C-alpha cells in the first residue's frame, strides 16, 4: 500500500521523530535505574558501615566511619572461606560437565538425522515443564541408599545429561551455522565427533560462554539441593551458610551479612561483565 500524501496537522522529520523517541526512552529508563540500584547500593554501603549506623534512623547511605574489618569478621563468624571453596568446586564441576553434555546433545539434535530424533527432542523440551519436586524425593531415596548423603555427588551427578534449556540453546545456535561447513567437513572425511570438536566448538564461544554463565549462576545460588543433601557444616555451600548466618543469630549482624553477601555476589557479577557481549549473540531464539 503506497501512501502518497497524508493529510497531517503538522509534520516532523524522520530524524527528529527518532530523536524524540530516543529521548523519551532515556527519560523513562533513568528513574528505573534508581530503583534497580537502590538495594545494591544499600548492600554496598552496609558492608562498610558499623552495626550502629546500619540500625540508625533515618538511614545514611554513606558509611561513617568506613569499616573494612566487616569482611574479616564476616568471614570468621562462620567459615565462609571454606564455604566459598565448596561452592566454587561444585560450580566448576557442573559448568564443565554440563557444557560438554549439553553441547554434544544439542549438536546431535541440530545436525544429525536419526529415527526418533524429533520425538526425543520433544521429550527433552517437555522436561522443562516438570517441577523438580516430582523427582526430588525418589532421587533423595536413591542417593540415600547409595550412601551419598552428605557428599557433593547428588548435587553434580543428576546434571550429567545437561539440561533441557541448555540443550535447546546449543541446538538453536548450531542451526545458524551454515550447512556447507558440515558437508565440506564430511567430504574431507571428518567424523561426526571431529566435526563437533574441531569445527563446532571453536565457532561456538558465544553460546558456550552463555551456557557457562547460566550454569554458574544456577549452581552458585542453589539452596534446596545443599539443604537436602548436606548436613555437616564443613561441607556447607555459600547459600546454605548465608541462610544459617541469618537464622541462627538472634539479632542479625547486618553489616557482616552484607559484607559476606557482597563477596558472594562478586563472581557472578564479574562473570556477567566479562561474558555480557557473548551473551547477546549466544542466545539464538529465532528458528532458522
Amino acid at each position, binding site marked *: 500500500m503506497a*501512501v502518497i500524501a497524508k493529510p497531517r496537522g503538522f509534520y516532523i522529520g*524522520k530524524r527528529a521523530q527518532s530523536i524524540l*523517541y*530516543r529521548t523519551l*526512552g*532515556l527519560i523513562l*529508563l533513568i528513574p528505573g*535505574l534508581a*530503583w*534497580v*540500584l537502590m*538495594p*545494591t547500593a*544499600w548492600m554496598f554501603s552496609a558492608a562498610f558501615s558499623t552495626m550502629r549506623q546500619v*540500625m540508625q*534512623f*533515618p*538511614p545514611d547511605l554513606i558509611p561513617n566511619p568506613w569499616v573494612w574489618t566487616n569482611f574479616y569478621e564476616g568471614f570468621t563468624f562462620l567459615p565462609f572461606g571454606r564455604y566459598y571453596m565448596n561452592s566454587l568446586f561444585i560450580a566448576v564441576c557442573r559448568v564443565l560437565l554440563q557444557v560438554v553434555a549439553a553441547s*554434544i*546433545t544439542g*549438536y546431535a539434535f541440530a545436525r*544429525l*538425522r*536419526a529415527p526418533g530424533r524429533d520425538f*526425543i527432542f520433544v521429550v527433552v523440551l517437555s*522436561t522443562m*515443564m*516438570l517441577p*523438580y*519436586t*516430582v*523427582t526430588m*524425593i*525418589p532421587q533423595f*531415596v*536413591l542417593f*540415600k541408599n547409595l550412601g551419598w548423603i552428605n557428599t557433593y555427588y547428588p548435587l553434580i551427578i*543428576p546434571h550429567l*545429561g545437561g539440561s533441557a534449556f541448555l540443550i535447546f540453546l546449543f541446538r538453536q545456535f548450531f542451526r545458524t551455522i551454515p550447512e556447507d561447513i558440515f558437508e565440506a567437513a564430511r567430504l574431507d572425511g571428518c567424523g*561426526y565427533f571431529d566435526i*563437533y570438536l574441531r569445527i563446532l566448538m571453536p565457532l561456538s564461544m558465544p553460546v558456550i560462554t552463555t551456557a557457562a554463565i547460566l550454569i554458574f*549462576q544456577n549452581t552458585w*545460588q542453589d*539452596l534446596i539441593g545443599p*539443604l537436602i543433601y548436606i548436613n555437616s557444616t564443613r561441607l556447607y555451600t*555459600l547459600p546454605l551458610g*548465608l541462610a544459617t548466618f*541469618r537464622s541462627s543469630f538472634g539479632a542479625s549482624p547486618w553489616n557482616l*551479612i552484607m559484607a559476606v*553477601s557482597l563477596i*558472594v*555476589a562478586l563472581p557472578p*557479577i564479574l562473570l*556477567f561483565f566479562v561474558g*555480557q557481549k557473548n*551473551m*547477546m549473540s549466544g*542466545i539464538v*531464539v*529465532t528458528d532458522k
Partner: protein
Amino acid sequence: MTTVDQAQSVLSGIGKKRFRFSLGAQEAMWFYIFVGPWLLSFFIFTLGPMLASFYFSFTQYNAIQPPVWIGLKNFVTLYNDPVFWKSINVTFTFSGIFVPVNLGVSLFLAAMLNLRVPAMRVIRTIYYLPSVLPEVVTGLVWIWIFNPDFGLLNYILYLTTGIKGPNWLGSEAWVMPAVIISALWGMGSGVIIFLAALQGVPQEMYEAAELDGANFLHRYFHITLPMISPVILFNFLVGTIGALQTFARIYVMTQGGPNYASYFYNLYLYSNAFSYFRLGLASAQAWILFVVIMILTMLILRTSGRWVYYAGGR
C-alpha cells in the same frame, strides 16, 4: 593371490558394502551415542524418579521403613488440610500477579533498552544486575529494606508521603505485596531473552514499514510484537512454571510466615518431605503441582495459536 590377500579383499569389500548401505545408519548411530548420556540420565534421574514418586504418592513412606500402600489417603488428607489450601492460595496469588506484571515490564524494558542511545551498554548492564545476584543474597538485602524501623523503603515512604510504612514482612496483610515487590526487582533475566529476540527481527521489515509511513508505535505493535510472540510465549510459560515453584527467596525472607501468610507451595512440600519425613504426602503434593502445571501449559499452548505468529508458518 595369497589367502591373506583374498581375505583382505573380501573384508574390504564387506566394509565398502556396509559403508554404502549404512551411511544413514551410521549417522543415526552417532546420534544415539551423542544423545546417550542425556537419555541415560533421563531414565535414571527423571523418568525413574517420576514413576517412583507417582507410586509414593499412594503410600505412607518415611524413607526408613518400606512404603505402605494407602490408596488415595494422601490426597484426601491434603484436600482436608487448610494449610495446603492456604499454600495454593499464596502461590497462585503470587504467580497471578507476578508473572503478567513481570512479562509486561520486561517487554517494555527490552524495547527501551533496544534503542540506540548513548551509554546504553552501561544502562543495560545496570538493569541486568538484579538477575545476576544470587537469590539468597537479594532475599537478605530485601529483608533489610523492608525492616519497619530502619529499612530504606519505609524511610522513603516517610520522606515522600509522610506515611509511617507497615511492618512489611511481619504483617499478614503486607508480606505478600513485599514478596511480589522484591521478586519484581529481579526482572533482568526475561529482558535478556527479549532483547536477543528483538535483535533477531529482520531490519528490512522496519525499513519497509517506515517507507509506508508507519511510526514507532505502529512498528512496535505490528512488527515487533508479532515477530517476537513465540519468545513471549516461551517466557510466559517458563515464568509461570518458575513462579509456581518459588522456594529459595521465601525460605530466606519469611520462612512462610507470619501465620502461613507467605507459605508457598514448595515450602510446605519441603517441610513435609524433609522436616517431617512424610515422603508419600510430599510426593502427592509434587504430583498435584505437576498436573496443575501440565493443565496450565496445555491451556496456554492451546490459546497461543491466536496470538503467536510463527514466521516459518509452522
